[in-house]
């Protein structure tokens, strides 16, 4: 008997596994239950992939979506269209990740009571978006595809982030049957989920890298003959400009967006430094906020020769940027080398209780304050001397345009990125209009309207 009785411990081992497993689960529960509750398909709070309870409003309390049994959108068709990608559609094809992320807070979840206290109605999620700016931006896009976004680089609030094409959730068009291409990629929130060829707006990155690592680059001069040839005979490759720019400084090279000068600047910076600074500036890293993560950009010099490297510094080659991330980079320049991360959900309340309140988060120093200061001056000069200050009604706008070539017969994307240097209106922005031509002629007028609306909204509280 001794022998048998001493061996009962083996069964005890199974008991230990069971107890250990349950303990592990309890820790998991305590740490992660809040995420489980908000995950797609969570039956009490979500309707498949979109949130199924509560109300979503803009920054001033205008209701975008009242999610009862009916899922009532804004009474304005324009608002329904301009905010669709943030509140989601009825079919769940457009998932409103940022709003769903706070589903738990919306129903007042806590690990002790679960969602018992939620009641029927659910809470209120207040977005940082402004209905007026959203509508202005969508209208300014005038049926073209693309995205327009503005955020406060001191607080992180996204005032505007529209994406087009879009549709009215109360009057859903025949998207599947459409052959005209009008609704191509309509389910994408381009601000978050698209990566674009940056074109010349990427020259800001190259300029920043040059300022960081090439001593005295500000005093150097670069010659543009309209064309730079690399290699010999049949293997000739060129970097070209639309005009002959003559002799340029770094500052005027940026203002004139001179490709030939940037090919020379690229050589001064070198491949290794470019890769290093692109990484340091986080220009192609994914950006995460409010439970959504943007797509990655791309800066890849694998197998790139001298000319390809030169093009990569001009924002062509295989370069890709995500609008949300690039806007944040603009915020970093405006913020003296430190970016405030953007967010779109400012507050969630459940009943009387505030269950979530956004906090401003700041990235690490991505470039030296000195580089940021010089770059600001350059970008300010771009607007003042090239794009025209009269566009912006007295705002100190610092920016860079771009016209990103897509290859083949496709019309270039118009790009425009920058920020307002103003204590009262600390706004960074990006504007991408697909297949629309020149950044200066397309992007500038759009931002002119959008920024004007932004300042108006900010003045009125």
């Amino acid at each position: 008997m001794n022998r048998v009785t001493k061996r009962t411990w083996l069964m005890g081992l199974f008991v230990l596994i069971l107890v250990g497993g349950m303990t592990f689960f309890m820790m998991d529960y305590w740490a992660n239950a809040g995420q489980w509750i908000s995950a797609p398909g969570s039956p009490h709070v979500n309707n498949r992939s979109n949130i199924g309870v509560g109300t979503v409003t803009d920054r001033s309390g205008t209701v975008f979506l009242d999610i009862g049994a009916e899922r009532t959108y804004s009474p304005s068709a324009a608002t329904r269209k301009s905010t669709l990608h943030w509140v989601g559609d009825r079919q769940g094809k457009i998932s409103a990740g940022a709003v769903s992320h706070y589903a738990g807070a919306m129903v007042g979840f806590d690990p002790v009571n679960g969602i018992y206290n939620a009641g029927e109605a659910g809470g209120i999620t207040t977005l940082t978006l402004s209905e007026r700016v959203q509508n202005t931006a969508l209208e300014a896009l005038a049926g073209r595809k693309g995205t327009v976004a503005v955020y406060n680089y001191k607080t992180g609030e996204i005032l505007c982030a529209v994406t087009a094409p879009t549709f009215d959730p109360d009057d859903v068009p025949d998207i599947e049957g459409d052959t005209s291409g009008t609704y191509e990629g309509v389910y994408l929130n381009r601000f978050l989920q698209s990566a674009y060829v940056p074109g010349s707006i990427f020259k800001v990155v190259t300029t920043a890298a040059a300022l960081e690592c090439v001593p005295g680059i500000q005093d150097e001069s670069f010659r543009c003959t309209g064309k730079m040839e690399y290699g010999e005979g049949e293997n000739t490759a060129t970097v070209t400009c639309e005009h002959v720019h003559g002799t340029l400084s770094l500052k005027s090279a940026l203002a004139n967006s001179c490709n030939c000068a940037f090919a020379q600047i690229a050589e001064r910076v070198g491949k290794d430094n470019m890769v290093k600074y692109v990484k340091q500036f986080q220009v192609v890293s994914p950006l995460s906020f409010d439970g959504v993560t943007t797509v990655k950009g791309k800066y890849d010099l694998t197998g790139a020769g001298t000319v390809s490297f030169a093009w990569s510094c001009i924002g062509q080659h295989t370069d890709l940027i995500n609008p949300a991330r690039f806007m944040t980079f603009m915020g970093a320049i405006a913020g003296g080398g430190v970016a405030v991360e953007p967010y779109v959900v400012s507050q969630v309340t459940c009943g009387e209780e505030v269950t979530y309140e956004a906090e401003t988060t700041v990235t690490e120093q991505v470039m030296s304050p000195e580089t940021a200061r010089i770059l600001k001056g350059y970008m300010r000069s771009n607007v003042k001397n090239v794009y025209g200050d009269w566009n912006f009604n007295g705002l100190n706008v610092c920016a860079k345009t771009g016209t990103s070539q897509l290859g083949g017969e496709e019309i270039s994307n118009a790009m425009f990125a920058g920020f307002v240097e103003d204590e009262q209106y600390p706004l960074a922005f990006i504007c991408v209009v697909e297949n629309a031509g020149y950044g200066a002629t397309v992007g500038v007028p759009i931002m002119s309207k959008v920024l004007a609306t932004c300042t108006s909204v900010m003045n009125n509280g």
Partner: protein
Amino acid sequence: MEQLNILAQVQSLVGDSFLGFLRIAAPVVAVLLLLRCILPLLTFRREPEIWAWLNMPDGSQIPITHWENVIGRSKSCDVTIDFSTVSRNHAVLTRYDDGSWTITDAGSKDGVFVNGKKVQISAVHPRSRISIGGVEMHLQPISEKQEIKQAKLRTKAASGWDSVANLMLLSVLQVFMVLGFLLSGTEESMIPIIQGFGGILLCQWLLYVFYAIIHRSSFEVETIAFFLCTMGMAAIATVKPTEAIKQLIALVLGILVFLLIGWSLRDLERAKKFRYLAVVAGVGFLVVTLLFGTEYYGAKNWLIIGGMSLQPSELSKVCFVFAGASTMDRIMQKRNIIMFISYSVVICGLLALMNDFGTALIFFCSFLIIAYLRSGSVGTVALAITALGFAGVIALRIAPHALSRFATWRHIWEDPFNAGYQQTQALMCIASGGLFGLGPGRGMLQRIFAADSDIAFATISEEWGLIMALLTVLCIVALACFVLRTAPVARSSFYSIGACTAAGVLVVQTMLNCLGTLDVLPFTGVPFPLLSNGGTSMIGAWGLLAFVKAADTRQNASFAVRLKGRDDA
């Protein structure tokens, strides 16, 4: 129509305030109930009892503290005689229910002599001269008086009033639960819900009355079991109320099986006979399933008879436990080890054909426990090899089929609408319920497949709270800990092995069920004993419980132990 209106009014008036009360009251009552049931199981005194003395030639006396004792030179023997002519495991001294003793040769080199005659097995009387390896000794059993005295010293099982109080608590809980469902459910589901909970309530009191009649007062293990059945009924009431009656019938059958196996275990000689029956039945159930079974998800473990779906492998588990249990004198014989190994090989082969990973794993774990408990010096190696073979069959033959279902393990959130659907829904609903639940009938998990069986833990957690769900696991853990305490003082290794293996099966099933639901372990779809909706599994679980009960040697505790000085058979 009028009734419906009144019902709706009452529901809205009383419903919410009662719900607020219920979500706190239910766990409080349950915690109180389980504390009262579990503490006595874990705290009873268990000092060794002395059943006889061995008078040695030098005048010393060696106490005999078990009913089955191995005598030999080895240190691990119950009676160690360190003499070179004594074999390592020489003989087994066995006491019987009537107080008589036998000695059996355990394959010794020089044999066992009683009154000068070499014997294989022989009765031993107080005057008998026993000679082992040339060492002579006498057995002196304790007197009738001493035995009665010893019985008085033994920890008494709970008084009848304690058990009544526990049952009252459980009844209160059951009434609360029914009220909770009445205030939130639909009219058509109410009759089966009342019948289901009412049936359990009736069963528990009838069984208690029966115990009182046969002078048994310990009802903790049974109360815990009824608590689990009640929680299972709570899951059924919300998921498939129409199946409440079916589950109730299974419960009644389960209790009958529990009593039958308990009765058969009461007398070791009878138990050994039943064992042969169980051995045949164990294989029989599996063979019948293989021949006439239906395949679900690649595993052939269902038998459909006249519209009823059965899982005979659940009953096979009970038979396997029976087959694995053995008395000490038999454990020491090579023949029995070989028999058991061959039996296990047959079972393993049948399981390989069935392709049911969960069941195979449970059999494997119970085999491990049995093998380890039985392995004396004789069969260790053989048993180890068989264990390896068993594991190999599971890994090579059964697991690959199950692998596709395991691919989602720890990755359920990557595919929440397909492969990870059941489990992510389960976790979301557990989170929704919090510690105290959303209230009966107010969960959303009921729409999900197997909400009342494979993921019943989550269903209970959502509606009754995580505390209640954890209490169900605590019940199984408590039963296992109770066995860990009783098994060492059991009268026979037959009971020790039986109880240990049975508890092992209960624990492993709970482990696979709950931790599978929670994505801590791969999801195997094994039923939670006594709780999951499933008739055969219910019957099987009560069968296993009989083994747990048989190891309970507290005075007047178990009907599976005969009362001294009473003829109550």
